[in-house]
């Protein structure tokens, strides 16, 4: 019996509709003996490329299609419903839908792309206008969801016939009527009667009927998942009494479909044999739809913008490139250097070999345009290794001088598309995109999409909402999870120490959660939305729109291809990564501030290299805010490595990667660098490549060089070999080949063995030097700014918020470095952070806080306030700046209106009266004392704690002083060591530290264990903490879910500037402060006597603190290696290269991000609810 071809199948790319991945569908189709399968997602073709690849793997012929909502031919007038006071309106899904299949090769595919693009062009939900509803290369299926199908369901064959006419006019013979039976009763969608009516109607009208199963999921039993998706899409809970999914919409095999066909034709009044004819029609339709993934979609071929658009004029692109490169040689002063000329010609040969000249010219054109707009731009990635790129002005660093290799980027042996990434200022990224679109035209340029997929938190939220769970409960459960895959939900619940409490609840209340977890895992990795990829831009020739569907992005309205990064590469579309880098914006702002305030013009790209003060700063490891070297790990590494040249920075950046850290390349390097270990080379020939890094292999380029030298195979081939090293299978082959070649070159066995050891151990981990050089440039520039213009540097950082730390930490750093922090003031503050001269001699610049950081301020409001300066009085401010009432209140709270007299609460009262006056139309009389000063109303002023709380609430920063200052007395009672004093602590000393959590990470590390790294800020400096496996049971929950921490730990010293604390117990400091206030020191003692992990919030259960007091009397954290460890060992992820990774490493940990403190902080100060908030 021949297989059945499903013509109507959706995958998870039909957002919140399909429940299976395209790969799964292809796999099942192959298992169930089908030889063709269509993918007809709703409103999108995004799954097409994956589907094509999966089908090729499974041996199934793919058909491509799309299911679109089609506008009615005559506009119908919808009744307007009353706007709901709560909960919002229903999601409108009333538009009829039809399924379009590509029939005629490339033409069909182009038609599909055009239809999808047209459907997304309008406002609101995707809807295909009737005028665009045509195409020669298409087959159209009108199913139960179409206007014709609905008329039939309503028992109106006459109306159906009427509606069929325009479809026939457009599509003629390519029109099909689609019968679907899902075992439902009645006459609606999926009922037997509608299916029978459809078949009968088709016979009557002379249109060919086909049978489909309107597949939503691959396997039987996934109906409940479809229900959850329906609920999530329509934003309503599942109604168990309402219409649920039939459970029949799975990828049925041929036998089951024959049964369906028999029932349908019988119900339609035909003999059973007619079922064969129905299936035959379906098969014939599938046979018509011939689209070849390679030939017709353009998989595997490359399309560059036309040469005349990239400045080649009438010459060929290659000629134009050669002449521009030669011009670059002269411009940069390399004209007299033979090596440069040779390298240039060598590279041009390679480029000509691949025919990539237009690509280089395109990138050069983009970079030129960006530079012309006055936007900072830098190349990153392996492209920096090409001299031609340097000559064209794309890459800043000179590759010959830094020993970068073209072969790492592009060689004759390598056949993949090279990629050049460029970094621009993040704040002006969209401007750059628009400029590119302007240059090449909308028909050649589109951004790339990025599907957002379900991970555990979103899955819990959507399933919980669908199951009518309490929103507060859902929120709590979702937040207690780290950002892991949804399919790991139950495993994580079993294993992660910080989820223990939740796991206990879940077990206790069993049934309540049972279905939740199952459904959460079923949603794993399904797309739930589409966003614009943060950097990819497609550049193509004018045929772009025939090869990819383009939709406008939701926020910016930029054209965006529905395909994601990988799809685009498979389709052979040229992608340029234009990355918005916040640090570039921050530096641009800093430079602009210096120029505005002092008139001094800084050219960052021309800053003198080797500036001693800059390197002194870097060596001090106080590198908060500096590009790439601000993380706790990097600060530690910088402290040990003590860089003093640009090359050291390059090495430092290369070493701080998961690979090198895991392979322990750091220690031998540091030992050798500081002369504590001798530098060794396997053979004198290898001294040259390895000299710069003390005999340790750090860079890809070194591996390429070593292999090329030892085997004489040439660098292009050596790069291929290097790539092969990460695959254990090919590694074996390479080893034999390497030994043979090296022996032939006359190296002895011992040398070969030792060299191979190095190559094998480090080869796959090294870092591309070109990347590192590109990174090190902004690293040096930012450190230079921090050393020479600290105030401007912090102004830039705070304005553009780069990096991993919350703003308040940068502010604390600024305070420590002696930059005066000037409070917000509506008469002085600008929209962005500014610098201000505080004293003439010695010249001290202060940092003036900006209006843009006020919570809830709009750009327009900030601009209006800044433009209207100065203001003479409160009334003047109110009338000219026209702030909203809540905004004005917030400004008063943080002291931005202090200049107008009276205290902050009095100001609030005046403001609300002004507001009332403005609303009432009558000008309210404002009591003024002395004309411009606002009179006092006798209200109590904000206390100092309330001011701090207001600053945290409004600015998310403790602007006037460090928030830990308030707890100083208590911390002294406890004997807590401050960060500054910690520097003198001995190795191995047990200390107590405390502070506000700044960053928490669980990165993958060498031992394959999970380590929680956290950084505390206590006002005097930073304390870096590490919690190892054995303390997780006791500490993990507290560390993730508290904001102020008290930690007991042991000091670890690894160098003069390298110090961390290994935590063994942790408490929520905010709770302890509360206990200290309410119960005195004895209460605190009782709390500390309890086990550290169960400190719990007082809200937990009946008398949490009391229980804790009774429970653990020995005061020790839980013993190491408790129940959670054993299953962990099984789940350890083994990398092919032998290094083990903990399954939960490298996740964003649970709890709120440290940056959003304020919500948690409110309760730190003992005050009435709502005051000053």
């Amino acid at each position, binding site marked *: 019996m021949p297989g059945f071809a499903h013509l109507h199948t959706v995958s998870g790319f039909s957002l919140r509709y399909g429940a299976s991945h395209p790969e799964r569908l292809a796999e099942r189709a192959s298992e169930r003996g089908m030889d063709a399968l269509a993918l007809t997602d709703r409103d999108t073709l995004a799954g097409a490329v994956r589907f094509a690849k999966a089908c090729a793997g499974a041996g199934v012929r793919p058909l491509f299609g799309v299911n679109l909502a089609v506008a009615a031919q005559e506009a119908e007038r919808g009744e307007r*419903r*009353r*706007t*709901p*006071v*709560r*909960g*919002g*309106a*229903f999601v409108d899904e009333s538009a009829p839908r039809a399924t379009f299949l590509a029939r005629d090769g490339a033409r069909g595919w182009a038609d599909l792309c055009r239809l999808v693009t047209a459907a997304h062009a309008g406002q609101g939900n995707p809807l295909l206008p009737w005028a665009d509803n045509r195409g020669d290369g298409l087959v159209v299926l009108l199913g139960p969801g179409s206007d014709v199908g609905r008329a039939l369901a309503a028992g109106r064959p006459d109306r159906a016939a009427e509606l069929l006419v325009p479809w026939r006019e457009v599509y003629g013979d390519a029109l099909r009527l689609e019968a679907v039976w899902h075992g439902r009763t009645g006459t609606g969608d999926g009922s037997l009667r509608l299916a029978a009516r459809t078949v009968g109607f088709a016979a009557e009208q002379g249109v060919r009927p086909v049978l489909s199963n309107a597949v939503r999921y691959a396997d039987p039993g996934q109906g409940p998942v479809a229900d959850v998706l329906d609920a999530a899409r329509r*934003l*309503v*809970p599942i*109604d*168990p009494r*309402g219409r649920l999914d039939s459970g029949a919409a799975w990828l049925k095999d041929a036998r089951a479909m024959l049964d369906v066909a028999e029932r349908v034709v019988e119900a339609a009044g035909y003999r059973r044999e007619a079922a064969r004819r129905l299936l035959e029609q379906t098969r014939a339709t599938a046979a018509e739809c011939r689209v070849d993934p390679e030939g017709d979609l353009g998989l595997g071929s490359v399309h560059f913008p036309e040469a005349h658009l990239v400045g080649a004029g009438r010459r060929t692109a290659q000629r134009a490139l050669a002449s521009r490169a030669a011009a670059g040689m002269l411009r940069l002063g390399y004209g007299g250097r033979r090596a440069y000329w040779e390298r240039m010609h060598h590279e041009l040969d390679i480029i000509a070999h691949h025919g990539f000249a237009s690509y280089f010219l395109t990138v050069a054109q983009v970079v030129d345009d960006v530079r012309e707009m006055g936007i900072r731009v830098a190349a990153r990635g392996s492209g920096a290794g090409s001299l031609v790129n340097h000559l064209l002005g794309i890459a800043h660093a000179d590759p010959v001088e830094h020993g970068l290799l073209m072969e790492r980027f592009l060689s004759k042996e390598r056949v993949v598309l090279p990629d050049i990434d460029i970094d621009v200022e993040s704040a002006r990224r969209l401007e750059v995109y628009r400029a590119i679109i302007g240059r090449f035209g909308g028909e050649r340029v589109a951004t790339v999409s990025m599907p957002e997929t379900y991970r555990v938190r979103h899955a819990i939220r959507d399933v919980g909402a669908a199951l*009518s769970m*309490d*929103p*507060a409960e859902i929120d709590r459960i979702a937040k207690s999870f780290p950002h892991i895959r949804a399919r790991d939900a139950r495993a994580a619940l079993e294993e992660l120490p910080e989820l223990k409490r939740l796991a206990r609840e879940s077990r206790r209340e069993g049934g309540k959660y049972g279905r939740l977890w199952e459904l959460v895992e079923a949603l794993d990795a399904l797309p739930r939305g589409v966003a614009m990829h943060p950097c990819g831009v497609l550049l193509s020739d004018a045929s772009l729109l025939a090869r990819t569907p383009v939709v406008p992005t939701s926020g910016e309205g930029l054209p965006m291809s529905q395909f994601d990064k990988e799809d685009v590469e498979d389709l052979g579309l040229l992608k340029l990564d234009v990355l918005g880098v916040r640090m570039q914006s921050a530096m641009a702002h800093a430079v602009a501030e210096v120029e505005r305030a002092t008139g001094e013009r800084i050219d960052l790209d021309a800053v003198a290299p080797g500036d001693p003060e800059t390197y002194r700063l870097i060596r001090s490891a106080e590198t908060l805010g500096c590009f790439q070297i601000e993380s706790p790990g990097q600060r530690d590494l910088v402290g040990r490595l003590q860089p003093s040249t640009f090359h050291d920075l390059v090495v430092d950046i290369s070493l701080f990667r998961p690979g090198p850290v895991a392979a322990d390349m750091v220690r031998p390097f540091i030992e050798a660098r500081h002369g504590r270990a001798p530098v060794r080379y396997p053979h004198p020939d290898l001294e040259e490549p390895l000299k710069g890094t003390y005999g340790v292999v750090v860079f890809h380029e070194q591996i390429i060089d070593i292999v090329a030298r030892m085997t004489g195979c040439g660098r292009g081939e050596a790069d291929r070999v290097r790539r092969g090293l990460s695959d254990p299978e090919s590694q074996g082959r390479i080893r034999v080949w390497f030994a043979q070649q090296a022996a032939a070159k006359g190296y002895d066995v011992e040398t070969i063995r030792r060299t191979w050891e190095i190559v094998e151990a480090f080869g796959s981990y090294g870092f591309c030097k070109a990347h590192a050089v590109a990174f090190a440039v902004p690293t040096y520039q930012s450190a230079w700014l921090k050393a020479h213009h600290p105030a401007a540097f912090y102004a830039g950082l705070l304005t553009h918020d780069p990096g991993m730390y919350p703003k308040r930490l940068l502010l604390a750093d600024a305070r420590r470095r002696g930059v005066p922090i000037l409070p917000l003031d509506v008469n002085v503050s600008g929209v962005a952070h500014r610098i201000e001269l505080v004293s003439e001699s010695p010249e001290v610049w202060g940092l003036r806080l900006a209006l843009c950081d006020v919570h809830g301020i709009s750009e327009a409001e900030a601009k209006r306030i800044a433009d209207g300066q100065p203001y003479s009085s409160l009334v003047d401010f109110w009338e000219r700046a026209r702030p909203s009432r809540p905004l004005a*209140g917030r400004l008063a709270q943080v002291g931005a209106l202090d200049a107008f007299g009276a205290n902050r*609460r009095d100001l*609030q*009262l005046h403001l609300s*009266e002004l507001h009332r006056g403005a609303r009432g139309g009558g000008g309210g009389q404002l009591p003024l004392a002395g004309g411009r000063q606002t009179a006092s*109303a*006798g*209200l*109590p*002023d*904000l206390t100092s704690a*309330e001011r701090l709380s207001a600053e945290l609430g409004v600015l998310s920063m403790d602007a006037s002083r460090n928030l830990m200052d308030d707890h100083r007395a208590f911390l002294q009672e406890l004997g807590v060591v401050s960060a500054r004093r910690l520097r003198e602590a001995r190795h191995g000393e047990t200390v107590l530290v405390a502070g506000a959590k700044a960053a928490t990470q669980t990165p993958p590390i060498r031992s394959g264990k999970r380590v929680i790294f956290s950084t505390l800020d206590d006002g005097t400096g930073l304390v870096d903490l590490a919690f190892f496996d054995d303390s997780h049971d006791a500490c993990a929950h507290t560390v993730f879910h508290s904001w102020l921490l008290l930690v007991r730990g042991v000091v670890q010293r690894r160098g003069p500037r390298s110090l961390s604390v290994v935590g063994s117990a942790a408490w929520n400091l905010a709770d302890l402060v509360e206990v200290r206030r309410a119960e005195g020191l004895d209460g605190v003692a009782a709390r500390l006597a309890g086990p550290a992990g169960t400190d719990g919030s007082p809200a937990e259960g009946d008398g949490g603190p009391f229980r804790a007091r009774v429970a653990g009397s020995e005061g020790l954290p839980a013993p190491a290696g408790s129940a959670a460890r054993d299953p962990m060992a099984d789940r350890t992820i083994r990398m092919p290269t032998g290094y083990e990774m903990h399954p939960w490493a490298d996740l964003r940990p649970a709890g709120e991000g440290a940056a959003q403190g304020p919500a948690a902080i409110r309760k730190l100060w003992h*005050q*009435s*609810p*709502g*005051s*000053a908030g």
Partner: protein
Amino acid sequence: MTILCVRFQLPPMYEAALPELLGLLEEFTPVVEALPPDAALADLRGAERYFGRSAVELASVVRVRALARYGVDCAIGAGPGPMLARVALRAARPGVTCAVPEDAVAEFLADRPVAALPGVGAATARTLDEYGLDTLGRVAAAPLSTLQRLIGAKAGRELREKASGIDRGRVVPNAVSRSLTTERAFGIDELDPDRHRRALLSAAEEIGARLRAVEKVCRTLTLTVRYADRSATTRSRTLKEPTAHSAALTGAAYGMYEALGLQRARVRALALRAEGLTPAEEASYQLTFDPVDEKARRIEEVADRARARFGPRAVMPGALAA
């Protein structure tokens, strides 16, 4: 030290028991004011002398009797005036009667939150908190003009007096509750308007029946819709004429519900509250020439009698029977 404020620990929706409990208080003094749904004020000025015990001692007697006769526990606050007794009640719990010391009223009030005062609702409390006037002591210390600017002339004056411990109120005897409440909860997030309307119909029928049973009419009907996120929407409607007529109440309830235009709101409960209760014989009734109204009232009368005889489910609207 003569006024008691008693809060009976009634399970929700058992306010029908309140009149009986008021009878218990009336054994001590005729001056008893009901504070529905579950509390009452009693003026014991005469009783103290009659029973020869202080108000605080009498409070213990009240509690014992309530427990013994009705099995209902209560918390009691005592004070020189009704306002102070009510403030005291907030600090009391069953077994611990809280009394306001007569000579240190201002000190007693000083540290209490503003919301403790009867008549200071959530909105006023929020306004005052915003300006740092979070305790009654601070309110008393603030200039009168400032308070009046904050919350209005009359309210400001009254607030300041109350905060300073000046209690001008007195206990006004009345018979029974001035409102009736009923609530219909849903087991899941309910979006279906038909089910909402059915719940409203049943609630309005119940309110009507209860009103007619005690021979009262209500002037105002309030609809509260509770949502899954624990928030609520409240709408009130004053009826054309005071009535206890189920059809009129249902009509008003439907009207308020339709005006909300709910679509995706996740409704967990609908509550109806009849307010402004007055005796039925005092109510006016607009006669019409339309016989339908007349018929409906007659049917209702008959149905009431049938229900009285055969139980509450004997006669009900068709929509609820399914």
